């Protein structure tokens, strides 16, 4: 009777997780564990599903615990396939937790066993997971620094190159197996890896494949991801009009999918793209749209970025009142969220603007040029990180002597 009850609870847990209600599924699995079972394979399946449910709920410490139990159990009962699966899941969880070295060891174990068992599907999945771990590792190290894509220290480059190799290996197998969905995933992440490596043409090719497969499946989320990634890559190729077109598709789909956060991101990207195209009216239009959604979502960081961008765009148009308004707002928000570098940037922007507004009353051009020289030499000593973190260094604010003269 106890046996049946554990099974019944676990079956209900499975049903709930499949229906998408992981939270409820977890309670049934936990109850099943409480009741207990003599059948270690059943217990292993319960642990595994508990681990996955917690993974999808973003409770990674719990996920780690249960996948670890599953691995121990699989080893105890000599279930090699079960061990491979537990290792893979443990690897994915360790990756999310930032423990890359252990994650690699686990994913490698998944790969080794799959090869030993001549399990092609498992092998391909392990290769994809390994690619993901190396990608995360590379991105993690890279984001600790202040590098642009393509401008990378050796350890980052090595990790990303390994990721690309694993994705390529995965692609060979899943192509043989005719698994289009898996190909789509591999192309997407391969594209992102090429992007970080600075291989923007290769990134475009991969994301185009991803887009094609997303359309085949009618997978609109994947389609939207591909448009967004294609937009990013074209920015770095200097093809801003094309980038704008892709971002517009992203925006369209984000609206259809009713995802406000993604919609905000698309507006922000479009604002930046039109800034690069020097169409400041359009840039302002999109940055304002971004600002509205950021406020709606109570996303202070996004709001700060919007204000910074708007300040720059209004400055470029010579609308100093609006520029001042947004620079002040950026300063306020940076203080509110404790963004020290944002605060510094805002102060610098404000002092630049105050200088312009002050100088507009002056007619002494030679004095102005001198102050520009001082300003330029000072800008070299400004903390690089400060400008970078606060979006990114598009120093449209910086005023050339010619520009200042025009304003006089």
């Amino acid at each position, binding site marked *: 009777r106890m046996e049946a009850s554990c*099974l019944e609870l676990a079956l209900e847990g499975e049903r709930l997780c499949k229906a998408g209600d992981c939270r409820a599924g977890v309670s049934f699995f936990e109850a099943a564990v409480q009741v207990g079972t003599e059948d270690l*394979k059943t217990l292993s399946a319960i642990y595994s599903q508990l681990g996955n449910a917690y993974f999808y709920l973003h409770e990674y410490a719990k996920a780690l615990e249960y996948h670890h139990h599953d691995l121990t159990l699989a080893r105890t009962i000599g279930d090699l396939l079960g061990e491979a699966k537990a290792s893979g899941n443990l690897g994915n969880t360790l990756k999310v937790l930032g423990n890359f070295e252990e994650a690699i060891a686990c994913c490698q174990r998944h790969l080794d066993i799959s090869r030993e068992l001549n399990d092609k599907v498992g092998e391909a999945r392990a290769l994809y997971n390994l690619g993901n771990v190396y990608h995360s590792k590379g991105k993690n190290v890279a984001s600790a620094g202040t590098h642009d894509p393509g401008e990378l220290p050796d350890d980052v480059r090595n990790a990303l190159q390994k990721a690309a190799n694993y994705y390529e290996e995965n692609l060979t197998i899943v192509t043989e197996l005719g698994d289009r969905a898996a190909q789509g995933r591999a192309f997407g992440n391969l594209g992102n890896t090429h992007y970080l490596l600075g291989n923007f043409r290769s990134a475009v090719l991969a994301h185009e494949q991803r887009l094609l497969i997303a359309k085949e499946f009618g997978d609109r989320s994947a389609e939207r991801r591909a448009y967004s990634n294609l937009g990013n890559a074209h920015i770095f190729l200097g093809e801003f009009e094309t980038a704008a077109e892709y971002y517009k598709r992203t925006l369209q789909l984000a609206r259809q999918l009713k995802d406000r956060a993604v919609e905000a991101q698309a507006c922000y990207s479009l*604002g930046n793209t039109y800034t690069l195209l020097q169409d400041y009216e359009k840039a302002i239009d999109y940055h304002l749209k971004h600002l509205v959604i950021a406020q709606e979502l109570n996303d202070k960081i996004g709001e700060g970025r919007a204000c910074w961008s708007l300040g720059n765009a209004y400055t470029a148009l010579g609308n100093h009142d609006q520029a001042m308004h947004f620079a002040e707002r950026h300063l306020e928000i940076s203080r509110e969220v404790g963004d020290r570098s944002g605060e510094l940037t805002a102060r610098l922007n404000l002092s630049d603007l105050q200088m312009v507004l002050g100088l507009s009353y002056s007619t002494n051009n030679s004095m102005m040029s001198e102050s520009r020289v001082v300003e330029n030499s000072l800008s070299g000593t400004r903390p690089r990180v400060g400008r970078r973190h606060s979006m990114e260094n598009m120093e449209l604010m910086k005023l050339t002597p010619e520009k200042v003269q025009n304003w006089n």
Partner: protein
Amino acid sequence: PCMKPGRQAAELQSKVVPSKQILHSDNMEMEPETMETKSVTDYFSKLHMGSLVYSCTSKRKNK
């Protein structure tokens, strides 16, 4: 190192953008992870159905 309005036009004409001008608005969109799945029913059907079938047939034989 900075992007000045006066210089911008010339720089925009060059094919590839100097990286420092880029706004990092782009957050990369990654594909989802794939987790390995186990199912109670898999093991249950293999294990218990097997023994069930066995017990049925053995009962029949006994008769």
